[in-house]
């Protein structure tokens, strides 16, 4: 099995925030923490584009590189996870992450910063699978149930794909070839060749 990855199709995302809600509900994420969020460019302008962003589970994750207590680890499926018992809440990972994925719960009258919380690809953490401790610290472990992340599985337009990188890349490639547009957003030429290889958009074609 290849690495687990997320891929968001900007042609399909309708900024419904269903993925954000699904994540918060699935893991009972506290107030002020958003493991996933939807970013919209040119909001309100015709042609606006939205994508859903969370931890991208980088192959060479900068958060792992900068963590002073080395609380990060990577599973055999390429999911970047961390041990909250070790985390000191310093925030270095937040500064290093290009996606703003690490989140810090705040509590008390003075907004004390807690331990880092981030998307786990619904893979839990180092606590025993399905245990109360794992759910409390990291949320539900759907991957150990043979399921994929809740955000991707419930996305109503299937803009957000999650799972084996090879499989979701194939799904996305077939989708773009059938609808005839959308490849320009994600560096299609780099991945699959020159854009001229894709068929011309059909008049009146829908995304």
């Amino acid at each position, binding site marked *: 099995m290849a690495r687990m990855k997320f891929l968001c199709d900007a042609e399909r995302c309708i900024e419904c925030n269903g993925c954000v809600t699904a994540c918060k509900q699935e893991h009972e994420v506290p107030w002020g923490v958003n493991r996933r969020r939807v970013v919209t460019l040119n909001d309100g302008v015709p042609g606006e584009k939205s994508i859903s962003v969370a931890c991208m589970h980088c192959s060479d994750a900068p958060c792992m*590189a900068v963590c002073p207590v080395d609380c990060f680890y990577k599973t055999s499926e390429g999911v970047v996870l961390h041990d909250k018992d070790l985390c000191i809440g310093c925030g270095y990972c937040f500064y290093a992450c290009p996606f703003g994925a690490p989140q810090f719960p705040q509590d008390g009258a003075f907004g004390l910063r807690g331990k880092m919380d981030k998307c786990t690809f619904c893979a839990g953490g*180092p*606590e025993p699978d399905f245990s109360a401790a794992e759910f409390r610290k990291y949320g539900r472990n759907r991957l150990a149930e*043979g399921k994929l992340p809740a955000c991707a599985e419930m996305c109503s337009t299937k803009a957000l794909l999650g799972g084996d990188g090879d499989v979701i890349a194939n799904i996305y490639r077939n*989708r773009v070839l059938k609808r005839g547009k959308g490849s320009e957003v994600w560096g299609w030429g780099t991945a699959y060749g020159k854009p001229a290889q894709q068929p011309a958009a059909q008049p009146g074609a829908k995304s």
Partner: protein
Amino acid sequence: MRTLLVMAAAVALAGVAAGCGEKSSVTVYKQGQYQGKPDKQPWDNDQFKGDKAAWEKAVKSRNLGQNEYVRVSGG
């Protein structure tokens, strides 16, 4: 006396040369070792009982389920 002068000059020259040296200002970060608790594989639980193939099959089925071109039109 001459030997002493030569030695002093050599020491002074070495000191001046060392002062001109420059260390690289680019830090090379080294990946540390994970210090936390070990985690189990996702198939090592009561549901899959260590059967990696069954787990991969379940995940792949879910994965392919995201392709609505196949799901709706039947191919």
